[in-house]
């Protein structure tokens, strides 16, 4: 008689026959497969199996696939399997939902750390560095040439970019550099007071801001704001074939999209750095007044003695180098994007990380040169 047939189920085993009845669909197919596979590993397994579908009234593609799956699994264990007695309706579905023999490749989930690292390093050196320098050359060339040619840029685009990269960043730069100046002065004030060197707080704040912090804070903020935006914009254009469309219209995407950003950035970045300097020093002055009783008047008198023209010039040069670094990095990661929406996200993240790192590296190199 029937053995191994759970109550109320739509299938039963009898010797070497598997009866399936009523309906076999997405919600009850899993149970059949589980039970049937369990039988496969038991001792009294048959060496010939008939899957009897005479009582099966309806099935969907999941059900049909499960039947074929069982046949496949049984045959792997050398049990010959036949699917029999299907009604016309079920036969039609067996025909329509025939299994595919395609062997898919399981995704490689194990990975070797050393191999991965080695491959990445090799790829980095051989491809990325080369293309990065090519891009730098390209952008430098076109930035210079396009100074004298208006073509290939949309009218007003440079100004738009100056506003987007520079003007819109003013509020956040004012706020943050003021706070940093304030904190810088507060932290040093007690130390200086111990030595009775109160007035040198002015030199400390002014030199720190002008020579180092002002341009650097600005660059880091701009990298976060505009570097990411540049990478996302260019990556999206690449993914949606907009860059290809530009090319086929005879327009160089670099000149059309990137060069205005270079100009807009170079035009505004030095001013942003100056604003950061002024606000940072103002923050320092407030702290000095509140904590060390140095009045603003004293602060300003002392300041005029501690400012060097060289520091102002250094700041300007630094911020120009920084903005060019940011634009090039954003462009590079934007152009490198591979697939779809996720690629855009990756490109954006990478570009911000790389831009900030490169800015800091450039800062230390320039620091050594101008020291």
């Amino acid at each position, binding site marked *: 008689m029937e053995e191994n047939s759970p109550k109320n189920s739509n299938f039963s085993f009898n010797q070497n026959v598997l009866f399936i009845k009523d309906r076999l669909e997405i919600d009850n*197919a*899993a149970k059949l*497969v589980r039970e049937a596979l369990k039988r496969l590993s038991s001792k009294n397994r048959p060496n010939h199996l008939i899957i009897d579908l005479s009582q099966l009234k309806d099935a969907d593609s*999941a059900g049909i696939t499960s039947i074929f799956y069982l046949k496949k699994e049984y045959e792997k264990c050398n049990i010959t399997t036949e699917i029999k007695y299907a009604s016309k309706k079920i036969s039609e579905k067996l025909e329509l939902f025939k299994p*595919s023999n395609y062997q898919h490749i399981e995704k490689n989930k194990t990975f070797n750390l050393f191999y991965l690292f080695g491959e990445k390093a090799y790829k980095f050196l051989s491809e990325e560095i080369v293309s990065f320098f090519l891009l730098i050359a390209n952008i430098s060339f076109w930035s210079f040439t396009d100074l004298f040619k208006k073509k290939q840029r949309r009218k007003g685009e440079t100004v738009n970019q100056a506003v987007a990269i520079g003007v819109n960043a003013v509020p956040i730069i004012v706020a943050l550099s003021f706070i940093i100046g304030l904190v810088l002065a507060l932290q040093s004030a007690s130390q200086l007071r111990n030595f009775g060197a109160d007035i040198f707080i002015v030199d400390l704040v002014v030199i720190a801001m002008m020579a180092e912090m002002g341009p650097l804070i600005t660059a880091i903020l701009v990298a976060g704001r505009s570097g990411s935006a540049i990478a996302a914009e260019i990556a999206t254009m690449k993914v949606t074939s907009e860059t290809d469309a530009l090319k086929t219209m005879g327009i160089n995407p670099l000149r059309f999209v990137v060069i205005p950003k270079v100009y807009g950035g170079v035009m505004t970045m030095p001013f942003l750095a100056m604003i950061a300097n002024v606000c940072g020093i103002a923050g320092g002055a407030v702290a000095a007044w509140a904590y060390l009783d140095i009045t603003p008047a004293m602060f300003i008198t002392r300041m005029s003695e501690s400012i060097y023209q060289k520091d102002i010039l250094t700041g300007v040069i630094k911020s120009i180098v920084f903005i060019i670094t940011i634009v090039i990095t954003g462009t590079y990661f934007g152009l490198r994007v591979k697939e779809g929406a996720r690629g855009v996200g990756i490109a954006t993240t990478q570009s911000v990380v790389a831009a900030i790192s490169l800015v800091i590296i450039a800062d230390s190199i320039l620091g050594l040169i101008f020291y």
Partner: protein
Amino acid sequence: MVQEKIIEVNNLTASFGNKEVLKGVSFSAYKKEITVIIGGSGSGKSTILNNLLRLYEPPANCVKIFNRDVTTLTEEELTRFYIKTGVFFQNGALLNSLTTGENIALNLEQHSNLPSAIINDIVKMKLKLVNLEDAFNLYPSQLSGGMLKRAALARAVIMDPPLLFCDEPGAGLDPVSLANLDQLIIDLRNKMNMTIVMITHEVSSIMRIADKIIFLDKGEIIFEGSPNDAVKSNIKAVEDFFGKGRGM
């Protein structure tokens, strides 16, 4: 035999801002029928679909599907409605971060308790139906336009939905692939009792598969009937559509 109404649309209106895109559209789609919505570009076809699917919020009492006003569905009922409904989006809308196989498997993984070996077999079988088995491990960005369409169709029918919506599945396919696709849609209808609502511009495909045509012009239905009636309907826009489409 009285046919079962699967979709009943009653005086459906839609507008964007103050632009009226649908001006009171009414039609029904019956079980096991292939209803084809046609009409010029921008006439509001995709908008109808979006309203039926409640991707846009239609006015109350306008859209009844499976005998329910879709605006009254609760969150949970809506999920069940979506599981029962296959959708083929005009631009494919496969997830770019997943392979084709993973894209198609997604619905089964989320809404069934089948073991993954079977899910893989189902996915491969559905890919075989659309003749696209080798795309299993490829990402959507690695597929051609026509391959994307077919992958999207495989995804739409993965759950054997009783109701299938297709927005221009045939656009951009070569004539042979198009005929195969039509045959598949007819097979699904015949063997799985699917009700299908399809938007298409391909005249050859319309003649092959449509049970009923709904012709939309600037947000209004100007013709409703069988393909044969459409050809001799004496409505200029409709006759132009078929005449020009056949190259006459």
